[in-house]
């Protein structure tokens, strides 16, 4: 199948059964790949109410049609599972070289099921797939075990590992790859750990079939040229994401001391420019990417800095959450904190947030020296490393903190709950938003919990005026549809975000690669479908799920010390949220309406809508009233039906009914009435 590996690999760790299934072209056409495949398969395969850490949860690893082909940055893979961090839809996206390697081995999707009886790793070399013992690697750090596996197999294997944190079921454990790329968020490493899956090693040697090689190569070359000619490329290659540290401080959006403030006085010591001079030793790119935003760093032990480490990064998010948010005052400390997290296998974003939360709890006396086992201070890298290790090994206070801020704060009490900087159970990432209304909404409505880059809206706030709310809900929705498109294609989005790369490039090359014709609108419609599907996953899994889950913590509505005012208020946020729901075709509680689900061909999810009977009022006019139970009568439906289906249920031939109105407006027989609607049926010549 052009553009695809062509197979789904299904591995059951409980039974040891390994199967391959052909990828259905119709499924591929509809769900494209990556995040699309992952979201749909997760919805179908993980049953309602599954325990995220139980045998019944699954990890779906999905590559996309542009991964591994000659396009800039065809490097991204999606990991999805029911999230142990949030209890809802869990997904994390990762670069590096794993996604292309899956395709060269012939797999678009790897589904991991069950739980291994003992620590295991999955070995894949083209058609040869084996579950092997990981006894030797169990307990080792992510980077150490990757190195060991590379020496034991061969350097060219692409490897995923988890660290002690994943093994010990820390809820924000990550999957690590390529010595510094991670699927960080929503606890995907935790799910690996619960399955006793330490690692996956993969190598593929086959070519990816391409529908029109000549055209795909021509378009690919054109896309590379566009990037080479872009004046912003150099800056990006030099500084990567840390290039925005100074800007985030200038616009006062930099998480500082557990989001108490939005400007960090030492930020100049954390900037991308300074980092390049002080610690960066080389550039590191994901597969096929000309932008090489990865920075490989080495910090040396000196009189001033205590630690000697090699680490990929720190990236902006790590600098924001471990730097500003924990108040670490220089890039060397942040690089060390980064290395500690990477080796232990915890997400640097959630870790920075959880540790900052603990630091503030300590400052406010909510946890004491006795609870923590030592003094915990903002700005102290040793406090950071101490807590990170306690968390990863579930020791002492780490046992509580390993649950993430939402659940840890419940243990510490109501004062602590105010300090938990999370939405839907996922810690807020690197952009504060008291003065950025679109960004606030983007975090609130994000499909995995508070993650910035599912819709990075803050530049729009700056562009149109941060206090303004007009147009922001629509913009957030647009961004929330562009991002999944990249994730479905299996490419990086930063070429578009950072270099202003034309979106129109993608349907063209997708057609040359797969032979499937898509328009950009169609691709974005598929994104909308994925967005609604994941929303339904939340509605299905969490009882009472609705708009209360879309609100940021109280702290964001309060003026921080030293400032006079902020733009975000409860009233404004409420308005934005309702406007957003309306534009999305969701009800006031933020649940997709049946109409929307039908429009998107998501009927299969309707049974999972929060259960409520639909009460209708029926009126019949003209001679046909003898055919009905009465002239006026109430009708209760368990599930929504079309008018046609309602007539059938009432055993009235639809041809006999001439006109239908719904709440006084003419309606057709395919309409699905909602609760409370008044339906009138008329004979063809009523009264005549």
């Amino acid at each position, binding site marked *: 199948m052009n553009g695809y590996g062509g197979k789904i690999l299904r591995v059951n760790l409980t039974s040891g059964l390994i199967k391959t299934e052909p990828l259905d072209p119709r499924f591929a056409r509809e769900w494209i790949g990556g995040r699309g495949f992952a979201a749909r398969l997760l919805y179908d395969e993980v049953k309602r109410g599954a325990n995220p850490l139980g045998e019944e949860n699954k990890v779906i690893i999905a590559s996309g049609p542009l991964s591994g082909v000659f396009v800039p940055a065809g490097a991204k893979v999606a990991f999805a599972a029911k999230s142990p961090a949030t209890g809802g839809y869990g997904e994390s996206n990762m670069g590096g070289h794993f996604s292309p390697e899956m395709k060269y081995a012939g797999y678009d999707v790897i589904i991991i099921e069950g739980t291994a009886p003992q620590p295991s790793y999955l070995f894949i070399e083209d058609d040869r797939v084996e579950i092997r013992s990981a006894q030797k690697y169990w307990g080792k750090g992510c980077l150490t075990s990757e190195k060991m596996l590379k020496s034991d197999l061969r350097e060219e294997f692409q490897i995923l590992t988890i660290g002690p944190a994943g093994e010990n079921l820390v809820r924000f454990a990550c999957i690590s790859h390529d010595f510094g790329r991670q699927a960080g968020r929503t606890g995907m490493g935790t799910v690996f750990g619960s399955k006793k899956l330490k690692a996956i090693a993969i190598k593929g040697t086959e070519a990816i079939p391409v529908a029109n*090689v000549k055209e795909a190569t021509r378009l690919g070359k054109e896309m590379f040229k566009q990037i080479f000619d872009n004046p912003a490329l150099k800056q990006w*290659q030099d500084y990567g994401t840390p290039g925005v540290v100074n800007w985030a401080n200038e616009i006062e959006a930099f998480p500082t001391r557990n989001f108490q403030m939005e400007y960090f006085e030492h930020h100049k010591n954390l900037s991308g420019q300074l980092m390049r001079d002080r610690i960066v030793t080389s550039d590191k790119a994901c597969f096929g990417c000309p932008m*090489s935003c990865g920075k*490989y760093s080495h910090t040396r032990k000196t009189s001033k800095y205590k630690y000697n480490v090699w680490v990929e990064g720190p990236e902006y998010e790590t600098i924001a959450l471990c730097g500003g948010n924990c108040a670490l005052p220089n890039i060397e400390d942040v690089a060390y904190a980064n290395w500690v997290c990477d080796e232990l296998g915890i997400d640097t974003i959630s870790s920075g947030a959880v540790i900052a939360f603990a630091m503030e709890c300590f400052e406010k006396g909510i946890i004491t020296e006795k609870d923590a086992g030592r003094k915990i201070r903002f700005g102290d890298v040793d406090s950071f490393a101490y807590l990170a290790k306690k968390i990863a090994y579930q020791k002492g206070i780490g046992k509580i903190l390993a649950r993430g801020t939402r659940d840890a704060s419940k243990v510490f009490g109501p004062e602590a709950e105010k300090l938990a900087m999370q939405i839907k159970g996922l810690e807020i990432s690197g952009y504060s938003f008291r003065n950025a209304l679109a960004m606030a909404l983007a975090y609130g409505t994000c499909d995995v919990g508070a993650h910035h880059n599912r819709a990075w809206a803050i530049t729009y706030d700056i562009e149109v005026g941060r206090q303004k709310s007009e147009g922001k809900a629509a913009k957030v929705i647009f961004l929330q549809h562009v991002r999944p498109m990249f994730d479905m294609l299996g490419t990086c989005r930063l070429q578009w975000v950072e270099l202003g790369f034309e979106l129109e490039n993608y349907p063209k090359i997708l057609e040359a690669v797969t032979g499937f014709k898509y328009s950009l609108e169609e691709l974005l419609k598929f994104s909308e479908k994925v967005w609604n599907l994941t929303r339904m996953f939340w509605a299905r899994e969490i009882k009472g799920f609705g708009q209360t889950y879309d609100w940021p913590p109280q702290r964001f509505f309060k003026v921080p010390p030293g400032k006079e005012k902020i733009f975000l208020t409860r009233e404004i946020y409420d308005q934005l949220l309702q406007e957003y729901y309306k534009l999305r075709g969701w009800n006031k509680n933020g649940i997709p309406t049946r109409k929307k689900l039908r429009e998107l061909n998501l009927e299969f999810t309707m049974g999972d809508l929060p259960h409520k009977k639909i009460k209708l009022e029926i009126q019949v006019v003209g001679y046909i009233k003898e055919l009905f139970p009465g002239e006026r009568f109430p009708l209760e439906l368990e599930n929504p039906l079309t008018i046609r289906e309602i007539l059938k249920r009432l055993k009235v031939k639809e041809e006999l009914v001439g006109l239908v109105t719904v709440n006084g407006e003419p309606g057709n027989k395919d309409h699905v009435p909602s609760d409370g609607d008044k339906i009138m049926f008329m004979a063809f010549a009523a009264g005549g």
Partner: protein
Amino acid sequence: MKIGINNSLCSGCRVCQLICALTCEKVNNPKKGRLEIVGHFPVPGGYEIKMTDECNQCGQCVRFCPMGALYREDEE
């Protein structure tokens, strides 16, 4: 033309392998590229570029190397 190598600039992106395989073998498969990229991680970091004997010095990889790690020696 003679191709020069500067390992310290290499980002490990493998664009060179991809374009080489497409140009010389007409397949989308970097493993068929006539050069190898070997990583040295976690310590000390960085990549090593190895041309194989099959390389015909056509220069396609040089045109698409985004980091200048491959270059034409006659231009240096």
